[in-house]
């Protein structure tokens, strides 16, 4: 910056001394640059860690991750082991989680936003839903074990696991749906009421279609969280090794994160289990990547339509 001399008579500043201000500019520009570099370094650090992680996993999985691995049955012998049953387990789990969370979550959100009176109780419930989202997943596992596993006698079946995971991600779905419903402009509801519609008609024809993209995004993200959860399933007592491929929701099962967990634990016994775990991680990461991409695409496509 070059120093400019302004004739005394043309000075317009009453309080700011341009001389002093000019001196400060250098310092302020420097601080800005430091901040810039600092923030850049943090992201470099984060990306580096992630890259090392992914690199290691992919390196370990090379030679192990092939079609035979994906379509084969579990086995004690590493070279024979496949994860078809594990994938089926995760898929069936999601087949339970998806409809349950979507129905219960959206219904709760509709009730909270459209029907219930907005008073102290409403606020209290809202805070609790938000808090539930922060409860450690192990606690949900214990709840699932007590209620679904023991009380309902579902044991360690897919249904028990799915319901437990549903509880875990429900708060997220409820909050996301509430936000999506809130984002539907009130003027649209008024227009609908003004034409003689009832509340339910308005919700069905105006609010839900408007909130759907938001609800879908929230639900897919919740699903992707559920698919990666380990702790609640461990608490439920999923058997270590299941040779049988599950076909229904009452079957015993194992799921991707659980299998990764057990194989990693057993690495001390058989070294090759580490490679199996790595290959399974790649499959799980791939699934997560697809799910999250879908969420982002939906969000961008339907963003801000009003």
């Amino acid at each position, binding site marked *: 910056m070059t120093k400019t001399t302004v004739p005394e008579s043309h000075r317009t500043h009453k309080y700011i001394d341009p001389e002093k201000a000019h001196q400060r500019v250098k310092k302020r520009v420097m601080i800005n640059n430091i901040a810039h570099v600092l923030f850049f370094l943090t992201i470099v650090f984060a990306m580096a860690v992630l890259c090392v992680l992914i690199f290691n996993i992919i390196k370990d999985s090379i030679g192990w991750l092939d079609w035979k691995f994906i379509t084969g049955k579990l086995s004690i012998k590493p070279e024979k082991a496949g994860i078809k049953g594990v994938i089926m387990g995760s898929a069936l789990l999601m087949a339970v989680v998806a409809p349950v969370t979507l129905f219960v979550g959206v219904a709760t959100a509709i009730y909270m936003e459209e029907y219930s009176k907005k008073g102290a109780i409403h606020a209290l419930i809202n805070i609790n839903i938000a808090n539930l989202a922060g409860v450690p997943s192990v606690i949900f596992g214990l709840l699932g074990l007590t209620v679904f596993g023991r009380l309902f006698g579902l044991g360690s079946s897919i249904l028990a696991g799915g319901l437990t995971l549903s509880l875990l991600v429900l708060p997220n779905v409820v909050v996301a749906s509430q936000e999506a419903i809130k984002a539907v402009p009130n003027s649209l509801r008024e227009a609908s009421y003004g034409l003689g*519609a009832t509340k339910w008609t308005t919700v069905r024809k105006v609010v839900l279609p408007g909130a759907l993209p938001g609800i879908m995004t929230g639900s897919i993200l919740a699903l992707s969280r559920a698919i990666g959860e380990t702790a609640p399933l461990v608490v439920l007592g999923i058997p270590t090794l299941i040779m049988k491929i599950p076909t229904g929701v009452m079957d015993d099962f194992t799921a991707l994160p659980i299998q990764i967990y057990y194989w990693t634990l057993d690495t001390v016994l058989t070294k090759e289990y580490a490679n199996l775990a790595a290959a399974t991680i790649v499959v799980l990461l791939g699934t997560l990547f697809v799910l999250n991409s879908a969420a982002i695409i939906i969000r961008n496509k339907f963003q801000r339509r009003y």
Partner: protein
Amino acid sequence: METKNSVKFKIENMDFHYGDFQALKNINLEIKENEITALIGPSGCGKSTFLRSLNRMNDLIENTKVDGSITLDGVDIYKDYDVIDLRLRVGMVFQKPNPFPMSIYDNIAYGPRLNGIRKKSVLDKIVEKSLRAAAIWDEVKDDLKKNALALSGGQQQRICIARTLAVEPEVILMDEPTSALDPIATLKIEDLINELKKDYTIVIVTHNMQQAGRISDKTAFFLMGELIEFSETDKLFSNPENKKTEDYITGRFG
């Protein structure tokens, strides 16, 4: 210029409360058939609250209370009407154009469908008739399947008016219908309102005093929840009786 039209809405000793706050105090007013009645006044004077009482839109807000009586053709709208029946007779157009995020056709057909009209040929007729009455048929007739949100603000507002007309109301309430529009679109809507007067009774809230002058037959001036003056628009704008009205319309308010 006293008109002989019959009384549509009769409001007697009406009070309105939001919780503890009294938004309207002892309002007495007659709204006549096939006339345009404008409600003017500064923000928060109660004019919108009053308008929204006429089709019970305020019912949607919790903790509100209406006292006194509002009758439509002699029937009390708070005691002897189902709110949905009332809204079929008293339609509403809002401040911001608020078409549903669906096609132009579906927007107009929304109300008729709610009332059980399913036949395509009947719906087609209603849609065309409503769009024509709202003076927008020629602009949209070739793409009725287009999303209504793709239209310009002025066109959207006329779609909203058409949507209201589609349920065949007798009264149309308008809450600052042109405040979000540019001057040309505003004048188009004003012409339309003038045209609609032949078949409908219109009550319009406006922040734009000139607009009230341009289009209305009668004007009501509200201040702090009270109805200060209600008379022929010509009279109110050239020679108001009340000092407060005079101060407001000459911009010497407060």
